[in-house]
């Protein structure tokens, strides 16, 4: 109950915060620039946004899709935000995601256990492997002073090629397909995955419109885990000695060292946790959605998009959840304007870039606001 009250007041506090105001204004400017871009390219921006809006909220299954899409972004966003809080720039969430997904696919396929055990075991294994992957960068930084930005960039590519190597192993690859075997149903997080394709399930769904709408998507339990993990991250940073130490190291490692905090250990710990979060993003993506991993021709961007998510979310746990949903909605809604208007989806990237850009410069927004309010004041006079 106490926790609940604190959470509530925290959320209220958040909305009163200046930062949130700047974020909202940045988002507004993002849409503004997006509409200018669309108009220049000869598309009606109002129509485009209307289509995007109904493309996101118009049907239950659209909303389900946005949530499915946002789930991994919440976690990679959390991973990066967590690292930011501890003074590290984890460009490697992408690689940790890949490793988490790979291990989840392997453990989901090879291990035979009842669902109640299988799911936690798979998640744990995936999170641990990705934690180690992130931990390598942490260790290299702590021990050898290797910049985590370089180490994680390298580890991203190594993860990609490692996945491609493992997926092509005979035991792993589905015959003649560039993908791994599907995970066992016991490891799946998709809701009613088996049942919804049975005769009975189909029949039931035919009569239940709402359930049908949602269940025609790979709607899964990942979002629940993601939100729970967001709360856990918030709790760690706010209420535990671990979070206190990690933040102290991030904010001033010299003072932390002086106060008896082991800086090296905490750098490694931070990267382990950050890696675990990104790894779980990969795991939920596999367990909830794809059910397998594929040979990767290029990075898929879950980690890189997570950077933007973390930044838009102000590197706070709650902020990340909302910004991941925004991000997911923009990406999903963006495809709709292509279908309806033939407008290029790149406009979404331009919008996201603009939002992040303005989030970087609250000062300009402040100046703009001051001008705006002054002008209004003059008008009133």
């Amino acid at each position, binding site marked *: 109950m106490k926790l609940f009250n604190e959470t509530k007041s925290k959320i209220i506090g958040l909305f009163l915060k200046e930062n949130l105001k700047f974020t909202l204004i940045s988002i507004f400017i993002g849409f503004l620039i997006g509409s200018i871009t669309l108009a220049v390219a000869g598309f009606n921006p109002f129509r485009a946004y209307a289509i995007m809006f109904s493309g996101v909220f118009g049907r239950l299954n659209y909303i389900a899709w946005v949530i499915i899409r946002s789930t991994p972004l919440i976690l990679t966003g959390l991973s990066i935000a967590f690292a930011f809080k501890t003074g590290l720039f984890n460009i490697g969430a992408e690689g940790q995601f890949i490793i988490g997904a790979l291990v989840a696919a392997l453990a989901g396929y090879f291990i035979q256990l009842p669902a109640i055990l299988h799911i936690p075991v798979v998640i744990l294994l995936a999170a641990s492997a990705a934690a180690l992957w992130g931990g390598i960068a942490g260790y290299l930084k702590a021990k050898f002073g290797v*910049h985590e930005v*370089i180490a994680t960039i*390298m580890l991203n*590519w190594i993860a990609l090629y490692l996945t491609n190597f493992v997926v092509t192993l005979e035991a792993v690859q589905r015959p003649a397909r560039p993908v791994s075997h599907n995970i066992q149903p016991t490891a799946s997080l998709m809701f009613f995955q088996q049942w919804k394709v049975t005769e009975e399930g189909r029949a039931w769904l035919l009569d239940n419109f709402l359930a049908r709408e949602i269940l025609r998507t790979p709607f899964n339990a990942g979002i629940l885990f993601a939100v729970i993990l967001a709360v856990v991250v918030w709790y760690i940073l706010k209420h535990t000695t671990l979070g206190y130490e990690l933040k102290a190291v991030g904010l001033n490692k010299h003072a932390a060292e002086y106060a008896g905090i082991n800086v090296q250990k905490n750098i490694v710990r931070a990267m382990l946790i950050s890696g675990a979060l990104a790894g779980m993003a990969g795991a939920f993506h596999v367990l909830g959605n794809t059910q397998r991993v594929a040979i990767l021709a*290029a990075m898929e961007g879950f980690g890189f998009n997570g950077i933007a998510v973390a930044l838009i979310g102000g590197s706070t746990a709650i902020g990340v959840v909302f910004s991941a949903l925004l991000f997911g909605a923009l990406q999903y809604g963006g495809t709709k304007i292509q279908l309806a208007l033939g407008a290029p989806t790149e406009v979404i990237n*331009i919008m996201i*870039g603009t939002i992040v850009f303005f989030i970087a410069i609250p*000062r300009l927004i402040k100046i703009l606001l001051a001008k705006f309010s002054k002008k209004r004041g003059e008008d009133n006079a």
Partner: protein
Amino acid sequence: MLESLAFIIGTTLMYSTPLIFTALGGVISENSGVINIGLEGMMTMGAFVGATVAYFTGNPWLAFLAAGLAAALLALLHAVASVTYSANQVVSGIAINFLGPGIALFLSRMFFDGATMTKPIPLGGTMPRPFHNLFIWLSENLSGTAGRMFESNSVIDLIFDQDATVFIALISVFAVWFVLYKTKIGLRIRAVGEHPKSADTLGINVTKIRYFCVMASGMFAGFGGAALSIAIVANFRQTLVSGHGFIALAAMIFGKWKPQGAMWACMLFGAANALVVFFGRAASPIQISQQLLSMLPYILTLIVLTGIVGRANAPKALGVPYEKDSN
């Protein structure tokens, strides 16, 4: 044997050239105290504009310059944010990485009937190879061994018959080194990166220098992109840059923020890739899985990094916005 080595060297040069340009961009910006994580986005912009201008004009030099200019314009955004409005430079750089490809692909669709790739650059529109004809002439006109030295696929030919961009990149390394360490402006740039307030009290315009450096950084990243799209290949496509900008960023840090250091780091990476190609061929004495081999450049970089003792010396004021009216 010697030819194999020459091939590896030649391939190293080819592969590392776009990286060298881009890493040099990083060196310039970061020596003035502005983190530039947006190199990837700037490079993409350069690659697209280079290919587009080359396609429409058939003039590689114009294309090369236009690529630098376009990326410098993109960098201007980064400069406005991080110099004038004291932005968090990492955040602003990330924004550039969304904006660069976003704008490039958007424009590509406008110019090329909705395609996210340009049409192939017509013959003569790509970067010339300055020694190509000379070597042919020499091999035809010199007799005996002397002539053979310049034959196609001779050691000299394999190493030196490269796109003009390769030589421009190497010259640029020297030029950037020279400017940074031998000229007045270079001294000032480094002073601004180390201690902007000190520079300011001596009447040096910190803002101007940082603007200059960030835009020069964009220009070089644009050159890097063009070195891919109008020299190594002859078109731009969505996936052309995919990650090169980040590798260049890593190389710049790896090279301890020095132009020559960045160059060596890029070459190390290029050489690792050349080795991958070399050992990946059927005739190779060692047979390793291609996927495992592909990891080599990245693993090698990590190993070399751990072997380098001591921390890299970033400019002291790197990432710290300079604000005049504060202590």
